[in-house]
C-alpha cells in the first residue's frame, strides 16, 4: 500500500534526522511537572503492584523510603499493596529507565534534547554496578548513593553541562560504534568519551577538589554510565516518530519484568503486550538461571533505534559477555535484524561489517512475516527484591505482541 510506504519513509526520515544533545541534569519534578507526591514511574507497559515482579517491588519500596514517604520497607510494601502510590510507565512522561526504571520527583534526571524536533526526553543517572535500585536493590547503601546523586553529583553534572553548552550525542555514538560499543551491554567507549567531554567543565564548576575527584571517579569507574544517556537519546529520537498515520514502524519496546510491550507509530500510544521471555545468558559466580528474573527495563529503546542487539556486529566482545556465541558470529545478529528493518543508518556504521549502517526502523509487518523477533542484549536481575544483578544475556521480544499490533494496525487502515 502506498500509504504505508510513504508513512514508513517519513518515520525513518524522522529517525535519521534526530539530533540528540545531552543538555542538563535537573530534578525529575522540574523536568516532569506532573510528577507529583507519591507518584512512581516504572519501566515497561502499565502494571499494578499485584502483578509486579520481585525486583520491581523491591525498587518501589526502596524509593518510597528514599522519598521519605514511609519509614521502612515493610511499611512501604503495605502501602503499595493498599494502593497508596500512583504507578505509571516512564514512557507516559517522556522518560525511560533501565531495568526496574524507577523514577520519582526528587531524583535527578538527565535531559536529552532532540534539536531537530524540539522535544526532550529524560532518564535517571546510572548508579553503577553491584547492588543498585535498577536491579531491585533497596538497602541503605543503595539509598545513600541515590542521596549523593540527588544532592551532589546530579547538580554538579547539570552545572557542567549548562556551562559547556551540552554534549552532541549523534557523533559520540558513531564513534562509540567504531570503538566496540553497542550501547546496551557495552558502553565502555561512550562512557569514556563522555568523561572526556565532561571533565573540564566539571572541574570548572566544582569548587571542592574532593567532590570533583569523587564525581570523576564515579563516571570513570562505571562502564555502563552511558547506558542511561543512550536510553534518553533513544526516547528523544523515537518520540517524534509517534502517531504517523499508516506507519508500521515500532516506536517503543519496553518490559516491566512481567509483560513485554510495544508501541507502533500508526496505532498511536496503544501498548501491545505479551508475557516477557527469560534471557539466556551467563551468570556471575554463585548465581544461575534459577535465580533470574524475566526480562525487564525500558532499555530496549536502544534496540528500537538500531543499537544494542541490533548493533552486535560492532561489539564482538559483548557477544561473549552475554553468552551469544563466538565473537565471529556477532555480525550475524546485525544482519538478521536487517531483515526486519526498513533501512540502515548511514551515520552509525559498523567497521567490522564493511561500514554497514545499523538496522533502522523495525517494521511489524516484517517481524510477523519472517518470524524473526528483535534481539535484545540485557542485564539479568535476581528474582528476589533487594539482591541486584546476577548476570547478562540475550533475549527475544515475544512475537505475540507484534501479531496483536499487526491486527490493530490493519484495523486502523480498514483492511481487517
Amino acid at each position, binding site marked *: 500500500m502506498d500509504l504505508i510506504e510513504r508513512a514508513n519513509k517519513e518515520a525513518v526520515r524522522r529517525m535519521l534526522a534526530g539530533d540528540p544533545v545531552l543538555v542538563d541534569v535537573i530534578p525529575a519534578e522540574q523536568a516532569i511537572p506532573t510528577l507529583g507526591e507519591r507518584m512512581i514511574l516504572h519501566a515497561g507497559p502499565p502494571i499494578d503492584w499485584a502483578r509486579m515482579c520481585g525486583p520491581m517491588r523491591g525498587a518501589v519500596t526502596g524509593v518510597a523510603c528514599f522519598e521519605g514517604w514511609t519509614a521502612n520497607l515493610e511499611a512501604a510494601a503495605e502501602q503499595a499493596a493498599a494502593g497508596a502510590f500512583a504507578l505509571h510507565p516512564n514512557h507516559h512522561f517522556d522518560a525511560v529507565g533501565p531495568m526496574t526504571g524507577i523514577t520519582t520527583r526528587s531524583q535527578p534526571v538527565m535531559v536529552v534534547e532532540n534539536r531537530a524536533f524540539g522535544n526532550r526526553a529524560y532518564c535517571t543517572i546510572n548508579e553503577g554496578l553491584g547492588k543498585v535500585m535498577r536491579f531491585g536493590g533497596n538497602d541503605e547503601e543503595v539509598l545513600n548513593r541515590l542521596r549523593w546523586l540527588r544532592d551532589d553529583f546530579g547538580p554538579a553534572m547539570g552545572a557542567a553541562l549548562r556551562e559547556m553548552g551540552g554534549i552532541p550525542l549523534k557523533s559520540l555514538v558513531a564513534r562509540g560504534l567504531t570503538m566496540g560499543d553497542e550501547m546496551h551491554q557495552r558502553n565502555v567507549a561512550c562512557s569514556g568519551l563522555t568523561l572526556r567531554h565532561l571533565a573540564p567543565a566539571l572541574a570548572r564548576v566544582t569548587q571542592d577538589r574532593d567532590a570533583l575527584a569523587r564525581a570523576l571517579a564515579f563516571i570513570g569507574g562505571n562502564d555502563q554510565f552511558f547506558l542511561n544517556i543512550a536510553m534518553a537519546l533513544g526516547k528523544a529520537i523515537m518520540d517524534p516518530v509517534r502517531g504517523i498515520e499508516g506507519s508500521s514502524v515500532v516506536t517503543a519496546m519496553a518490559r516491566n519484568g512481567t509483560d513485554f510491550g510495544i508501541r507502533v507509530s500508526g496505532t498511536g500510544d496503544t501498548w501491545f503486550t505479551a508475557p516477557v521471555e527469560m534471557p539466556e545468558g551467563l551468570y556471575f559466580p554463585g548465581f544461575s538461571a534459577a535465580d533470574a528474573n524475566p526480562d525487564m527495563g525500558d532499555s530496549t529503546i536502544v534496540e528500537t533505534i538500531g543499537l544494542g542487539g541490533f548493533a552486535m556486529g560492532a561489539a564482538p566482545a559483548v557477544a561473549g559477555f552475554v553468552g551469544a556465541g563466538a565473537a565471529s558470529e556477532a555480525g550475524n545478529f546485525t544482519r538478521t535484524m536487517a531483515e526486519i528493518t526498513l533501512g540502515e543508518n548511514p551515520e552509525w556504521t559498523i567497521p567490522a561489517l564493511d561500514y554497514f549502517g545499523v538496522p533502522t526502523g523495525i517494521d511489524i*509487518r*516484517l517481524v510477523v512475516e*519472517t*518470524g524473526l523477533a528483535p534481539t535484545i542484549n540485557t542485564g539479568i536481575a535476581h528474582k528476589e527484591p533487594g539482591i541486584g544483578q546476577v548476570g547478562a544475556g540475550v533475549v527475544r521480544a515475544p512475537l505475540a505482541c507484534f501479531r496483536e499490533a*499487526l491486527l490493530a494496525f490493519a484495523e486502523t487502515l480498514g483492511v481487517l
Partner: protein
Amino acid sequence: MDGSTMSDDIGKTLLNTPPKVVNLGLESFALELSQQGVAVVHVDWTPPAGGDPALADLLSKLGA
C-alpha cells in the same frame, strides 16, 4: 544430433554424479544428509507468518 533432449541429459547427470542438495526449512533433513557424507547447503527458511494463512493473507494486503 543423437536425438537426446535436455531432460535426458539432466536425468543422466543426476544418476551418474554425486547429488548436490539445497535444503529449505527443516534443518534436521540437512543434518541427516550431512552425516551421510552428502554435500548439502541449508537455507534457514520458514513459511511467511509461520504458516498462518490468515496472517499471510493480511500481510499481503498490507503490502508486505
